[in-house]
């Protein structure tokens, strides 16, 4: 196990990976856990697979965050809200699989409305 960690850290520090793309941003063990739970068909996972996902997830989060930020700016705000993420999902075809997870009309939205009503009172 210790050897594997040394191998990864050598790859990360000396492998020409820019600091901002350090894969240690996401824990490999947790990624593996999520992979296993995704389907009963998933039996064995190679050592490479969680490493590949650490990079893919980082890129995914960056892309969705950038698009969410576009929504934030359109709303003339500086804080990214859940609704910005939901709108980014709704307007990007490749994020269709997230439609149910990040829907603009969520219970959260109701909470916001209630807060507005309280403020007016």
């Amino acid at each position: 196990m210790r050897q594997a960690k040394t191998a990864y850290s050598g790859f990360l520090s000396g492998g020409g990976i820019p600091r901002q793309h350090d894969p240690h941003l996401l824990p490999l063990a947790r990624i593996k856990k999520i992979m296993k739970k995704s389907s009963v068909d998933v039996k064995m996972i190679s050592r490479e697979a969680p490493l590949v996902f650490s990079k893919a997830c980082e890129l995914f989060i960056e892309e969705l965050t950038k698009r969410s930020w576009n929504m934030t700016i359109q709303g003339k705000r500086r804080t990214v809200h859940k609704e910005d993420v939901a709108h980014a999902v709704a307007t990007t075809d490749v994020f269709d699989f997230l439609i149910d997870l990040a829907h603009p009309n969520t219970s959260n939205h109701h909470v916001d409305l209630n807060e507005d009503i309280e403020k007016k009172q």
Partner: protein
Amino acid sequence: MANEHDKMLPIANVGRIMKQILPPTAKISKQAKETMQECASEFISFVTGEASERCRKENRKTVNGDDICWALASLGFDDCSNAVVKYLNKFREFEQERAAMNQINEDEDEAAAGPSNSSKSKYHSK
């Protein structure tokens, strides 16, 4: 509660990646981070499902890095797939170099050990 968190990527890590890509003055609400956390975790499940389906069809038991790269492209994440293929190739090069270095080290150790090797083999044959 603990079970639920185990199914997702840690929110601190997710938040850090989000922060890095945004301007320094940008802020992120807690709920936005939670939503991103859920989305990223769902992304892993979604892509893994596609990859494992391919393995099943090809009668393979192990989901490997190539399967993930293929699944990313298959599901429309082209840019991501291209970047990840490069990353995987770099990792494999590194692994090969490391294996080669280990082999050289082992050869050197054996050479240094010299005569004691024959006595070792006598011991093992018992």
